[in-house]
Structures are given as structure tokens and as C-alpha cells.
């Protein structure tokens, strides 16, 4: 699309070298797995809050949300408002303080204590595989984006991204992830505000946009609406948002995703852990302004783009002067890297603590686990580099693989929730519930097109998979022997401030 000027390249290089050096300094005094996986439990709550938000905005979201807003308009704000604010408040008061008090490293570790080791290892394998596979996809999408944006060769983009992220995550662990994420959040906001402001001036603000969009045109009838009916034909209808996002996928992500919860566990106190999620929720309120509005402005400035997902890079290339392009491009790289570093560190944590330590070396010392975590970080970034080009060649297969793994989110969340709030839930019930939930998800995905009239069936499938897992866990638990109350009492949710 365009070549960067020397000034822009200098800005980008300073940024890339700067965060690698920062990773080195942050990792110098780390010696144990608590230092590496939980930042020594000394992370600042406001940094964790910013890190939570920027990790949620990866390459897929940055391109995808702006691209979808280009086509569908303001309803995409629901991804950040209705799908996030409710679940984040629930996570702040229910899940995060609960895990913090349990002093666990991972969610599978909690599952193991609450149910048994079979549930722990199964959930760890699912999440661990999901994260490593996703790393390859993140790298591939990033490379494709950089190829479109600045014409970089795909293999060079993969190499540069993997080297930079791998280096600072390897050296600094979770602390480096959170600190660099905070810097990346600031750069991302600056870059996005620049695009928003220039787009705003070109379009003539909100009133200019309202005048320019013909809402009587086919496909644009609901361009400015947020609550949409099933017959609108738009993907984010209100039942999909309420049942799929607000009730299942949102809480599963903010309260049950290892990459999210892990950094909250790295704060110094339970109160700080809660504050980090609430601060993240406050920041989330502003995200539609920097992702959705630029996409909507793009619909006026650049109508008829063949691939709507390229609207954000197109606006970067067309609207920004030299120098600013470098800053916004660095912001773009920041968004790409923030998801990769989070998943890389969390994958290493799960494989170290729930698979290696649990299955192969129960007596491992703190220093040994620290070294294993670092080695796995290198191994996973190398695997991701290998997977990235394969993702490109067999995109359908990998998309299916990731879809398959993402099917576990609803069912895993169901057994997690029941384990926390229902003392009668048993390990057999949880295993059966997980399998029933996944089977429900797979079956509905298989027959999806013939069954669902509404657009975006994945959101309804997530709801039914969650519901199926919930019912199966309850039914089987009622016929099996629960653990002694004294053994699970510390692991049950209590309403405390």
C-alpha cells in the first residue's frame, strides 16, 4: 500500500528496540516461577488494567472491528460495551478475587483442586493447545497485515514480530508483558486518536456522517443503531449479544480465560486485582471511539472497498503525514504484539504448572520451574513461527481447528461456574458436562446453516453449548458422590467485599 519514510522507519525501530531492552531490564531480578508467571505478585493495578484492554485488541480485532463497522456501523460498539462491561464487573467481584484468594497460578489448577486432576489436565491440555495454535494464527494475520500495509515480505514480518515478542517475553515474563502492554496501550490510543481526529475533520463530525450515510440504502438501514432485531439481517442482534456475548462468551473470557485472569493474579492484593479489572472496564468504554468510529468514517471517505478489513490500514496510509505514520504504525505493531505476548506467557504458564509440574516433576524447585517456563516460551514462539506459514496454506483447516477449540469456552466456563457456586458439583459431572457441551457445540456447528435463521449462529451455539454443559453437569452430579464439604469449602464462592 505504501512504503514508510526514513523518519517513520526510525520511529518504528526505536519502538521495537526500546521494548526489547525494557524486557531485558525487567527480567534481570527474576529467579522463581512466581516472578516469571505472576510478576512476583507486585504488578501495578493500573498497568494490569491497561494491559487487559490492549491484549483484547489484537490484529484480528483492530482490523476486524473497524472493517465490520465499515459495513454494519455502530452496532459493533456492542463488542466493547454490552459484551464487556457487564462481564468485567462480574469478573472483578466474583472470579478474580476468588482466584486471587485461592493463590493459584492457573484456572486449570483451581479445577484440579475443586474437582480432580483429570479435569485439571484435560482443561489444561485444551487451553494450552488453543493458545499455542492461536499464536501461529496471530503471527500469520500480523504478517498479512504488514504485507498489505507496508509491503513487507511475509516471512520477514513473522520473523521480526516473533523475535521482538519472544525476546521481551522470554526475558521479562509476565512483568514485561504487562509493562510493555501499558506502553503499547498509550501508543495505540495516541495513534487511534490521530486517525479519529483526522477522519472526524474530513467527514465533518457526527453530523457530517449522519448526513452522508443514506440510511434508506440497502444494508445501511441500521447503520447508527446499537440494539438490533433478529430480522435486521445484521450479525449482532440483541439476542446474540445478550445470550452469546453478555451471558456466556464475555464472562468466559474476562473471568475464565487464563491470559486475562493470570495478570490480575500478579497484583499485590485482592483489592488491587479487583481494581485492575474495573479500571480496564473504564478504559473499555472508550474503545468504540477509537475502533468503531474510524471504520464508520471510512465508509464515507472510502466507499466500495473490496475487503472492508483493510479500512484501518487504508486510513493510516491515506490520511497520515510523515512522522505520524511512524507513530500510528508503531501503535499498530503494538496491537499485534499485545495479544501474542499474553498468549505466549499464559501458554508457558499452563504447560509448566499444569502439565510439566503435575505430570512429570511434582518436586520441581522454584528455580527449575522458572527455567522450564523460559524454555517453553522459546519453544512456543518457534512452534508459532512454524505454524504461521502453514496457517496460510491450510487456512480452512486451521480456522476449523481454532473454531473447534473455541467451542470449549462455553462448556469450560459452565463447569468452572458450577464448581464455584454449587457444592454438589462432582468431578464426574464436570467431565461429562464438558464433553456434552463440546458435543453440543460441534453438532450445532455442523448443522448450523440448516438450523439457524439468524445471522452469526456461533453466538447462539456458544449459549447452547454452555447450557448443555450446565444441565449435564447438574444431572450427573446428582447421581454421583460429591467431595466432603470440608475439602471444598475454601474453594467455594463467598460474597465478600
Amino acid at each position, binding site marked *: 500500500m505504501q512504503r514508510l519514510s526514513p523518519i517513520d522507519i526510525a520511529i518504528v525501530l526505536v519502538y521495537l528496540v526500546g521494548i526489547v531492552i525494557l524486557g531485558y531490564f525487567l527480567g534481570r531480578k527474576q529467579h522463581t516461577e512466581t516472578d516469571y508467571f505472576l510478576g512476583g505478585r507486585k504488578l501495578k493495578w493500573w498497568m494490569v488494567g491497561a494491559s487487559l484492554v490492549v491484549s483484547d485488541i489484537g490484529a484480528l480485532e483492530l482490523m476486524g472491528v473497524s472493517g465490520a463497522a465499515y459495513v454494519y456501523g*455502530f452496532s459493533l*460498539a456492542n463488542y466493547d*460495551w*454490552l459484551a464487556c*462491561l*457487564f462481564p*468485567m*464487573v*462480574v469478573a*472483578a*467481584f466474583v472470579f478474580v478475587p476468588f482466584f486471587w484468594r485461592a493463590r493459584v497460578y492457573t484456572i486449570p489448577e483451581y479445577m484440579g483442586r475443586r474437582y480432580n486432576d483429570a479435569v485439571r489436565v484435560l482443561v489444561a491440555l485444551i487451553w494450552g493447545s488453543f493458545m499455542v495454535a492461536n499464536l501461529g494464527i496471530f503471527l500469520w494475520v500480523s504478517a498479512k497485515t504488514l504485507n498489505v500495509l507496508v509491503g513487507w515480505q511475509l516471512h520477514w514480518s513473522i520473523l521480526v514480530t516473533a523475535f521482538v515478542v519472544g525476546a521481551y517475553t522470554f526475558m521479562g515474563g509476565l512483568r514485561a508483558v504487562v509493562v510493555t502492554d501499558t506502553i503499547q496501550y498509550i501508543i495505540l490510543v495516541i495513534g487511534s486518536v490521530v486517525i479519529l481526529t483526522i477522519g472526524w475533520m474530513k467527514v465533518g463530525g457526527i453530523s457530517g456522517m449522519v448526513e452522508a450515510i443514506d440510511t434508506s440504502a440497502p444494508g445501511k438501514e441500521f447503520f*447508527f*443503531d*446499537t*440494539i*438490533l*432485531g*433478529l*430480522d435486521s439481517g445484521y450479525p449482532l442482534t*440483541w*439476542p446474540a449479544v*445478550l445470550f452469546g456475548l*453478555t451471558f456466556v462468551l464475555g464472562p468466559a473470557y474476562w473471568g475464565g480465560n487464563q491470559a486475562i485472569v493470570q495478570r490480575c493474579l500478579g497484583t499485590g492484593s485482592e*483489592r488491587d486485582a*479487583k*481494581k485492575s479489572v*474495573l479500571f480496564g*472496564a*473504564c478504559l473499555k*468504554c472508550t474503545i468504540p471511539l477509537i475502533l468503531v468510529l474510524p471504520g464508520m468514517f471510512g465508509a464515507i471517505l472510502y466507499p466500495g472497498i473490496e475487503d472492508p478489513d483493510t479500512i484501518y490500514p487504508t486510513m493510516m496510509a491515506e490520511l497520515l503525514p510523515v512522522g505520524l505514520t511512524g507513530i500510528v504504525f508503531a501503535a499498530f505493531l503494538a496491537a499485534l504484539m499485545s495479544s501474542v505476548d499474553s498468549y505466549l506467557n499464559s501458554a508457558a504458564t499452563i504447560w509448566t504448572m499444569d502439565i510439566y509440574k503435575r505430570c512429570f516433576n511434582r518436586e520441581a524447585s522454584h528455580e527449575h520451574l522458572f527455567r522450564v517456563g523460559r524454555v517453553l516460551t522459546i519453544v512456543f514462539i518457534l512452534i508459532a513461527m512454524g505454524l504461521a506459514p502453514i496457517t496460510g496454506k491450510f487456512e480452512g483447516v486451521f480456522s476449523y481447528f481454532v473454531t473447534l477449540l473455541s467451542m470449549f469456552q462455553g462448556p469450560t466456563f459452565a463447569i468452572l461456574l458450577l464448581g464455584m457456586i454449587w457444592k454438589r458439583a462432582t468431578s464426574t459431572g464436570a467431565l461429562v458436562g464438558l464433553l456434552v457441551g463440546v458435543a453440543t457445540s460441534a*453438532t450445532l456447528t*455442523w*448443522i448450523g446453516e*440448516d*438450523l*439457524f*435463521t*439468524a445471522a452469526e449462529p456461533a453466538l447462539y451455539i456458544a449459549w447452547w453449548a454452555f447450557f448443555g454443559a450446565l444441565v449435564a453437569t447438574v444431572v450427573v452430579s446428582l447421581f454421583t458422590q460429591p467431595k466432603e464439604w470440608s475439602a471444598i469449602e475454601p474453594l467455594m464462592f463467598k*460474597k*465478600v*467485599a
Partner: protein
Amino acid sequence: MKETLASLLKPFADFCFEALNAIPLTGARIIFILVMAALAFWITTFKDENPKNLPEYSGKPSGFLLFHDLRFWAVCILVLQIVLVIVFK
């Protein structure tokens, strides 16, 4: 197999679609508002965080303490979400 399963489940899927589609958008908006309000109410029933007990807040005036009660911020976020649902069509 696929067709059989689809034909078995289709009546229920259609029933759900029709039932949800029958709810007017104003009703949907009210549902969202009620869900947020219910969560806000539930959060307020959590025990008082009493920041006076935290060393960093000892001696601070009581009005100041309101802003350090995390329940207050949670309710603010949910009220903001309610306002967004009301303001945007």
C-alpha cells in the same frame, strides 16, 4: 444424518426465533437495562469494603472514602452502560 438432526431441531429453533423476534426493540432495551440494574443492585449487597480499615486511607474524610469503595465504581460503570443503551437507538 445431518438433515435428520436439522429437521428434528428445526421446529424448536424456529420457535425460539419467533418468540425472540416477537419482543419489540423497546422490550429488548428494557431487558438490557434490567440486567445491568440487577447486577448493580447485587454488587451493592456485597459487604461494605470499609476502606477505613486499610492503612493507606486512615484519617481521610468520609466523603473521600466513597471514591475508594470499589462497589461505587462498579455501579458507575453499569449506570454508564444503562445510559448508553438509552441514548443510542
